[in-house]
């Protein structure tokens, strides 16, 4: 089986576990929803302020949800030593990295569809202004978050490493995604959407670089 086929098998397995366990729907979605409602209430009823802050709050909710999604994805590997099975399989270890990232991209995009709906209702954010740009920002940003999480999520499951290392590594590295995602979302909803190209380009470049570097580095992170 090719590395791509192996990555797809791993992604399919992770998505099946997610569908059975409903971790995103049962844990991460309520968390993201509560975060948005709490911010909405604290900012008050002013429509203009809500609209201005909505892109940032939306991406903060997605960022924190992605951290939880990755912890969950790797916890399933650690429950009964299953991760060792992946490591001992005669496969390209980059396929583990790519497969787990692909599964989380699907999970996060499903989550974002609901969260964007919440933001439209709570913050009156106009999403029909430039839907293609908005979708591009979310797809590219989500890939960026997923590859960073897939790269370092494995570290938290390694013996002799601490779980706390995961957010410490992931959150600073996700800053470019957060900044570019917020700016592109802002331009796609309330600003001149034509100016979002450079932010989308930054997201694309980030995805390409981290995916490439991650595919090369992952084996060194997971092998003893």
């Amino acid at each position: 089986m090719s590395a791509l086929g192996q990555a797809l098998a791993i992604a399919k397995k992770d998505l099946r576990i997610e569908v059975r366990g409903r971790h995103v729907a049962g844990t991460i979605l309520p968390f993201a929803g509560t975060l948005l409602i709490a911010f909405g209430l604290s900012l008050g009823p002013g429509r203009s302020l809500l609209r201005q802050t909505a892109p940032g709050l939306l991406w903060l909710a997605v960022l924190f949800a992605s951290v939880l999604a990755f912890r969950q994805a790797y916890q399933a590997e650690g429950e009964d030593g299953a991760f060792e099975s992946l490591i001992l399989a005669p496969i390209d270890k980059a396929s583990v990295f790519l497969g787990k990232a692909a599964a989380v991209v699907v999970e996060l995009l499903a989550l974002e569809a609901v969260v964007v709906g919440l933001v439209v209702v709570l913050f009156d954010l106009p999403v029909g202004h430039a839907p293609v740009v908005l979708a591009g920002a979310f797809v590219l940003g989500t890939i960026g978050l997923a590859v960073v999480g897939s790269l370092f999520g494995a570290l938290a499951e390694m013996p002799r490493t601490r779980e706390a290392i995961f957010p410490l590594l992931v959150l600073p590295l996700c800053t470019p995604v957060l900044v570019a995602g917020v700016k592109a979302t802002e331009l796609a909803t309330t600003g001149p959407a034509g100016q979002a190209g450079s932010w989308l380009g930054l997201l694309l470049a980030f995805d390409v670089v981290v995916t490439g570097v991650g595919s090369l580095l992952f084996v060194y992170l997971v092998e003893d």
Partner: protein
Amino acid sequence: MASLTDPDALLDEHKPDAGRTGAAPAVQLRAITRVFGVAPALVRVDLRVEAGEVLLLRGPNGAGKSTLLGVIATAISPTYGSGTVFGLDLVAGRDEIRRRSELVGHRTRLYEDLSATENLRFVCALHGADERRVDPALERVGLAPVAGDRVRGYSQGMRQRVALARAFLRSPDLLLLDEPYAGLDDPAKDLVDEEIRATRARGGTVIVATHDPTRGSAATRSLYMDGGRLLPELRRAAR
């Protein structure tokens, strides 16, 4: 044949090239040391296992048996020393060693939210094994009636059986069993012995680490481990 009264001569029996020549041994370790933090788990272990052997490893908890199996399976890298499996270097030949060996360890390495069938199909996908072997393997360990149920609801013994079925899927050249009898009832223990004999019958090699003194009848040789060192079983008896 080493003298029973000469422990050092007995030790030579599991040192590399001790009177053996010919094809590459299944396993050959030279002065393997593994340190976790500051605690040595293996201390200068020399071991030679010929193809077709069934080696029994005995010893107390913390003796280093699991670490030794982990090193041979390439799950754990040695801190010092070198070794080969089927003539392949433990580091440079890692992928091929993994292709030809199977480690059944303490942990069953199953996904709780998948069924036994789904777990084994995933193993087939990773190892390029034929998925048609999944149902017969589960039938053989007596789990066919519950093969579609999630592993989360299985007892420890049932999980161990699934882990055993995983070994049946691939017919590895080197089977590494770490406490394979733990948590199993007698029929399942007999299945383990059956698989050991079947592996040997097709020319494969088996290394079994176990506490169970009632098992090991299929072994062709046994060694005792203590404090990260290997000793011949006979030397232990002579102490």
